[in-house]
């Protein structure tokens, strides 16, 4: 067998990891040895894994801080719900409907990504971060006054109230302002989630090993040098941003179609931050790290359940301690000594995406 390159092998390990994750939980579900609360977490875990990988494209590979990633997720979520509910009769097959919801959700999120991407081209660093934050809040705010219904005549949309959208008696309310999307048929499955992760991994890993990916990382490492080499900075930043947004949109659709109701507030600043925590904790630019961090940190509050009221407090402390332990110079030196003592290679200083 031909020897695979290091990057390809690392990519295959990621696919393998996801497949193992899927099989283990499938077996656990079929033998019934899994708690209901953990079972309910499986689809959100998949969605968050996709979110983490997609945000990693922007934060880790492109080197821009984004604080509004949940905004793209909510665009995908609400589009997905609207698509799924309005195609209820036209597409009876739930799998196909889920696919359509995710694809159209991703498409709309990508459009939103282009819209946000335009100011991105002029701003840097923390100013860009605040624009993404502002965008996330704007999306949440708009969704809060969005009313969508569906009847025989098609979709009805209003920003005033549910009565003013003018549906006939067969109409179904899909999105009801601050109440969010209601009456969602739960069509997301764990299998679909795993397939979505695999697709996202495939796209991300191949893109990052391609000319485009190298250009994106080159711009991150030294924008001026990259520009001098003739790379179109605007184009590559926008590519990273839009692909990331599209993936977040698909994740949003998957996530929303796992619940019977979903409110716009769910995708606020805190969710964006949560995903950012996955990325930073997993290591910027490290896809496997994002996957593991997303899974562990989504389950962690569940595992801490026995501490009941204290669990979020402990979660916060764990977060602070991990950040200090992995980023403090002294702590790092201790790590390196421990690893050297075990005969392993000392850990190199992690590549810092923010330069």
């Amino acid at each position: 067998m031909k020897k695979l390159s290091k990057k390809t092998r690392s990519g295959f390990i990621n696919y393998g990891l996801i497949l193992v994750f899927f099989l283990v939980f499938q077996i656990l579900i079929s033998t019934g040895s899994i708690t209901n609360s953990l079972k309910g977490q499986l689809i959100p875990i998949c969605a968050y894994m996709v979110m983490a990988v997609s945000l990693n494209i922007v934060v880790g590979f492109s080197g821009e801080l984004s604080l509004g990633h949940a905004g793209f997720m909510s665009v995908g979520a609400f589009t997905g719900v609207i698509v799924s509910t309005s195609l209820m009769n036209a597409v009876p097959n739930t799998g196909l409907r889920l696919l359509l919801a995710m694809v159209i959700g991703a498409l709309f999120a990508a459009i939103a990504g282009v819209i946000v991407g335009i100011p991105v081209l002029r701003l840097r660093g923390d100013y860009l971060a605040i624009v993404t934050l502002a965008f996330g809040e704007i999306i949440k705010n708009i969704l809060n006054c969005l009313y969508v219904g569906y009847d025989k005549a098609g979709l009805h949309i209003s920003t005033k109230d549910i009565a003013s959208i003018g549906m006939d008696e067969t109409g179904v309310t899909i999105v009801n302002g601050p109440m969010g999307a209601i009456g969602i048929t739960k069509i997301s499955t764990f299998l679909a989630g795993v397939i979505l992760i695999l697709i996202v991994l495939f796209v991300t890993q191949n893109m990052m090993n391609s000319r485009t990916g190298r250009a994106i990382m080159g711009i991150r490492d030294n924008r001026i040098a990259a520009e001098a080499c003739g790379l179109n900075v605007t184009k590559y930043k926008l590519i990273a941003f839009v692909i990331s947004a599209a993936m977040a949109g698909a994740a949003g659709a998957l996530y929303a179609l796992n619940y019977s109701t979903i409110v716009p507030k769910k995708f606020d600043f805190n969710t964006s931050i949560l995903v950012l925590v996955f990325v930073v904790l997993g290591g910027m630019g490290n896809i496997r790290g994002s996957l593991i961090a997303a899974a562990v940190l989504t389950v962690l509050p569940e595992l801490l359940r026995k501490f009941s009221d204290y669990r979020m407090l402990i979660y916060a402390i764990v977060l602070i301690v991990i950040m200090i332990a992995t980023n403090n110079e002294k702590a790092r030196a201790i790590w390196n000594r421990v690893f050297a003592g075990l005969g392993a290679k000392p850990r190199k200083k992690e590549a810092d995406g923010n330069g």
Partner: protein
Amino acid sequence: MTFLSHVINGISLGSVYAIIALGYTMVYGIAKMLNFAHGDVIMIGGYMCFIATMSLHLGTIPSILIAVIVCTLLGIVIERLAYKPLRSASSLAVLITAIGVSYFLQNAALLIWSSNTKSFKSVVAGVQPVKLFGDKLSISAEAILTIAVSVVIMICLTLFTGKSKMGKAMRAVSEDRGAAQLMGINVNKTISMTFAIGSGLAAIAGVLLLSSYSSLTPTTGSMPGIKAFTAAVFGGIGSIPGAMLGGILLGVIEILGKAYISQELSDAIVFAVLIIVLIFKPTGLLGKKIKEKV
């Protein structure tokens, strides 16, 4: 006349944002970090003042003093425990740690004071609103107090950073940390001091904010925190006059947007204005232009 009263309310709310934004901007200028836990210090300040008046039956002034002292100490402790070990780490790592601190403060508050909304009694409760133009324009005592306090704070802070030795040290550290250290400035002490001042201001902002909007919960601080952060960026992060200007403009835009465009969309309007301003002035209104050398 209603327009004028909206503007005054806007300036009052904006003054609170400005005071919070000062904390953000000073910490950013000196430690180059976004302190996302800043909003939660506001909340702690609110609770401290609440407890001091309700449980300890202290007067208004001692209660506010207690809130300021506790928050100042809290600011120093947070900096010492959570941020100091990360002095040389990447800015994102510090950002995530700040978020961890923010979660910690919110959940600690949740455990200690529960999630029930507490109704904060205004520090100037009972004072009659000022009526002008034959009762046509009524300005609440809270608005006057807020604006007056923020003017005093801004003057003091400008004098402090401009004239005092510590203030000069702060500016020096924010300009160039390494050079400041070589000139014999104690960088750690300066950074601690910045956190102390920022957190003390946050406590005052908390009391003023809650005097106008009385509901106090463990998450009270997060939205004003985000808005103030926006204000700091709006004015040019790192710039003290920028934070003041940004805060006040943000408050006025928010109140006018609420009054004349849409109640629900007021936040969206604020953020949309921010984005538009940043497109034309990429480093904020009063931000320094960053020169790039190749």
